[in-house]
């Protein structure tokens, strides 16, 4: 992690409600540029909501969400669109467009968001798919892919525009340990290149400890703890210790 300059992502006293239910309650933290932060917590504690707030798919009732210094809470669609171009999002279900081939899934953002020629787009698609090990599956439909391949395809699409921030929502969920480890390798490789800030929501402690520089623990919408794995292992809160412990 570089840790220099302005943080890539800042949450300032963010509160988010769905009806009467408070999903996030006064949450504040920052993710430095080039850092990998893993957010852990029990189901329904607001982890995925945190990611969606970072990309402006949801708006908080209170507080500020800053991406590279810019508060995105009050931005209009055009402003949000500019911010989103800097962010790649890997959804929990991969969210591939099921009526498009893998090639078209990657071509869609490249053709619309860049002014690159057809040949350049083709070579970027091939290179990105090669990076995630799907170079030979370029013309397959999402329905023809396994769970792990779908996750890798989702990651390829998220990386197609070469974002400076990658948000990954449970990249290992529903995968066996080997496939899960392959996804972690890809994220680790990305981190080692040093220019991408990564925020991962996960239940997989092993992967989180491997990929993450720091971990954050959410519980009932509140940030219980944030820090390095070794620090959180000795945290005063039992839930924090349990969530970051590698022991089953």
């Amino acid at each position, binding site marked *: 992690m570089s840790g220099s300059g302005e943080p890539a992502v800042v949450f300032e006293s963010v509160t988010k409600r769905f009806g009467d239910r408070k999903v996030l309650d006064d949450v504040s933290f920052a993710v430095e540029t080039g850092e990998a932060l893993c957010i852990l917590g029990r189901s329904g504690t607001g982890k995925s909501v945190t990611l*969606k707030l970072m*990309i402006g798919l949801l708006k908080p009732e209170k507080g500020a969400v800053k991406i590279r210094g810019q508060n995105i809470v009050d931005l209009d669609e055009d402003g949000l*669109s500019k911010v989103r171009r800097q*962010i790649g*999002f890997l959804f*929990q279900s991969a*969210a591939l467009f099921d*009526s498009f081939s893998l090639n078209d899934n990657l071509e*869609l953002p490249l053709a619309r968001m860049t002014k690159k020629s057809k040949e350049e787009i083709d070579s970027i698609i091939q290179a990105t798919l090669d990076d995630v090990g799907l170079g030979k599956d370029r013309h397959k439909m999402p329905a023809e892919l396994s769970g792990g391949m779908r996750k890798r395809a989702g990651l390829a*699409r998220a990386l197609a525009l070469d974002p400076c921030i990658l948000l990954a929502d449970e990249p290992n969920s529903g995968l066996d340990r080997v496939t899960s480890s392959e996804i972690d390798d890809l994220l680790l490789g990305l981190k080692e290149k040093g220019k991408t800030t990564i925020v991962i929501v996960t239940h997989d402690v092993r992967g989180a400890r491997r990929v993450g520089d720091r971990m954050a623990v959410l519980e009932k919408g509140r940030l219980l703890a944030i820090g390095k794995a070794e620090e959180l292992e000795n945290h005063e809160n039992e839930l924090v210790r349990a969530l970051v412990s590698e022991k089953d």
Partner: protein
Amino acid sequence: MVAIQRYLEFTGKVGLFASHAVCRAVLPPFEVRMIFRQIEEVGWKSLPLVLASGFAVGLVLTLHTRSSLLRFGAEAMIPTVQSLSFFNEIGPLIAGLLVAGRVGAGIGAELANMRVTEQIDAIEALSIDSFKLLVIPRLIACIIALPILTVFMDVAGLTGGYLVERSISHLSLPLFLEQAFSQVGWATFIPPTLKTAVFGLIIGLISSFFGYTTDEGASGVGRASTNSVVISSLLIILSDVLLVKAIFFLFPDSAI
């Protein structure tokens, strides 16, 4: 009281959705590729259903009108009655209802499924306007495809009618066509055919509304699909009443 409130809420939401669609439809970029893709989905893939239904309705209608007109010794009018009833009402209405069933359910379910599986969120996350990419092309495709499908419906209906006449009274094709088109003018063909563009607008708008705005899980997909068909069909029939009155007012020749 609650039902009225819900009805007003629904009407308001659909109205906002429609105004949003109109504003987005006239602003670039225009999703030409997606529009052609949707015209294929809505038009080309509905063609077998429309042709088969039109043919069957043409057969049955001729058999029924034949027995009725025979009582008055007016069987020579069968081709005329059939063409007028098809061009004026049966073709447009049945084409509208068939497409509402096939396409309305498809659009409602597809968009709702995309919402539930976060595909719409993924489009937004890629800085792409999901409304423009998903809703506008479907809307335009429905508006363009419906009048074309109606023409095919009319042709299939007349073909069915001719085959019945041919088998029973050995009527020749030129004579059948001459009788069928003797009372048909532009005013009895163009306005009723073009009114199906309004049916297309209703199908595209209602089914996209239910699919795009669903916020429930898997059950929401089924509900969006059912609501799309039910509300589209109902609005097609209701709007038909108003459109027929409007056509009679604007084109008095068609109200003979």
